[in-house]
């Protein structure tokens, strides 16, 4: 895979009270690529997401988005506005609001209090809302309270909110945790669809799901990359077998 990188991590180190969560982590994601990141618990997958989205500041290294935007100097809202969306492991939707309002708040646009005070839903917003609700198969549930959705539906709603942000890069943390097989298959399909127009990085435990995605895989262990390549190649790598798959 060549092409311009949309995200580059160079020698990133993060430690919490002496524990090295990320240890000289280097990784590059090409524009338009979908990448799966796997690794045992404590490998640093979520910390890596935290670093990219500005929640955690690294002790050393560089994190660069697109051509030359240094993400390390920006906070979460600024990074989100650059076009990096993040889906959390546990679905986090705004429970008391309707499904439609959840997506509405996520729609790419002005985020200032001055704007939202006066904002009225425009025809364009309405069209985009309907489109996204259809994509995430919640078209008929727009007026339902988000807190009343099933677990799988909440995951989808959150993906819909990410779509609404129109990010250039989507970070997805364990999207199929707790999903049924049918929901898992549909989610793989949905992610592939999303990947047609955006770069995606998926962190996942579920090997069947990673296989279904059929993309390049990066294996993390103790905060650094130990293998990279197709799922078959990675699975044959003796180090990977030792730290992760063999257990």
């Amino acid at each position, binding site marked *: 895979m060549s092409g311009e990188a949309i995200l580059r991590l160079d020698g990133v180190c993060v430690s919490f009270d002496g524990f090295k969560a990320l240890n000289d982590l280097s990784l590059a994601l090409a524009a338009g690529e979908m990448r799966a990141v796997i690794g045992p618990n404590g490998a640093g997958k979520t910390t890596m997401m935290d670093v990219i989205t500005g929640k955690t500041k690294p002790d050393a290294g560089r994190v660069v988005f697109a051509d030359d935007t240094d993400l390390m100097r920006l*906070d979460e809202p600024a990074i989100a506005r650059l076009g990096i969306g993040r889906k959390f492991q546990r679905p986090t939707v705004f429970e008391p*609001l309707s499904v439609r*309002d959840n997506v509405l*708040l*996520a729609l790419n646009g002005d*985020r200032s209090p001055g704007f*939202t005070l006066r*904002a009225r839903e425009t025809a364009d917003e309405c069209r985009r809302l309907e489109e996204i609700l259809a994509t995430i198969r919640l078209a008929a549930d727009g007026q339902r309270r988000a807190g009343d959705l099933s677990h799988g539906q909440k995951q989808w709603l959150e993906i819909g909110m990410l779509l609404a942000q129109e990010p250039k890069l989507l970070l997805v943390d364990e999207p199929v945790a707790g999903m049924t097989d049918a929901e898992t298959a549909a989610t793989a399909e949905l992610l592939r669809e999303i990947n047609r127009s955006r770069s995606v990085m998926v962190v996942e435990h579920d090997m069947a799901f990673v296989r279904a995605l059929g993309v390049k895989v990066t294996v993390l262990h103790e905060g650094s990359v130990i293998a990279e390549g197709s799922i078959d190649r990675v699975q044959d790598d003796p180090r990977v077998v030792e730290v992760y798959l063999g257990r």
Partner: protein
Amino acid sequence: MRTDRITTATLGCVLGGAVLLAGLNLLTPAASAAHVPDFAISLAGKYLCYAILALAVDLVWGYVGILTLGHAAFFALGGYAMGMYLMREIGARGVYGNPTLPDFMIFIGWNKLPWYWYGFDHFWFAVLMVMLVPGVLAFVFGWFAFRSRVSGVYLSIITQALTYALMLAFFRNDMGFGGNNGMTDFKDILGFPLNRESTSVGLMLVTAIVLAAAFVLTRALTASRFGKVLVAVRDAEARTRFLGYRPESYKLAVWVLSAVIAGIGGALYVPQVGIINPSEFSPGNSIEAVIWVAVGGRGTLAGAILGAVIVNLGKTWLTSALPEIWLFAFGGLFILVTLFLPRGVIGLFALWRPRSVDQHMPAAAASAAAEAAAREVAG
């Protein structure tokens, strides 16, 4: 639709109730059974001021999750600004007959009006300060607190410390606000004598109108997209950041507005009770305001008004009938409401109606608020 009904009912109760009381006071003979005595008018006026404070508390606690334990500070500051105007209105009618210096300043031996008392002889200036002083204090406080991401119980504690610090400061005579005794013996407001019954009725009606206006404003605010962001920040602050929102800006905006509303409530309170002193800053007052909101129904606005009125009605009755048990009853009420009425009294109205999915439905918001509160307690 339901929302509109609640809004209409609330406005009807506040404005209609105030007009009814005023009419029954002014237009019926004192001997008539329908006559509303003068003391009831001033009580009603007082409750309406408390309801304005409760509305301010509900705006920040119910909608953006800031459990403020210091809102009485903004109420008292608004009250002091109004008190300063009322003191200057006394003019030469004070005990010492000094046309500019209030009595308490002469009493402690001052012979010059401090600079921060300038301008308070004008009503418009006092009104400006009623809003500006609490607003600026809230802005400075919120700027530091929200930007450094202080939240939850730590934020509650520093709001409590804020009001306590102000109380200690206002107790000092050399602050120039009357020290321990505060300000009292007011004569008139805008030329209307405060001891005349029509002035009390007028003040009560103005308070009702201000409460109604504050209710309409906060209602519109919370129903807007801005209000939806507030609820999002309340329930999942980190998530809003990753969507590109800056929760601190939203918190600051609504915090300052809430402080201004509380200040206006305090300004209306002082001419009706005839005194302002540092005890208005006492931490217990702020906690009481939170309980009014919890009793009425957090995150519903209408519930805040209802809670302030019913709790204070109970307080007035109980403190005269059985004064020694009031505090126990009050504490017990809070525990009972938390355990058995997590949506407050207003949540009772939703019990015999099918659950709606409309997110504007106050009961739904209240139950979410109760869930959030339960999480806070559990966490």
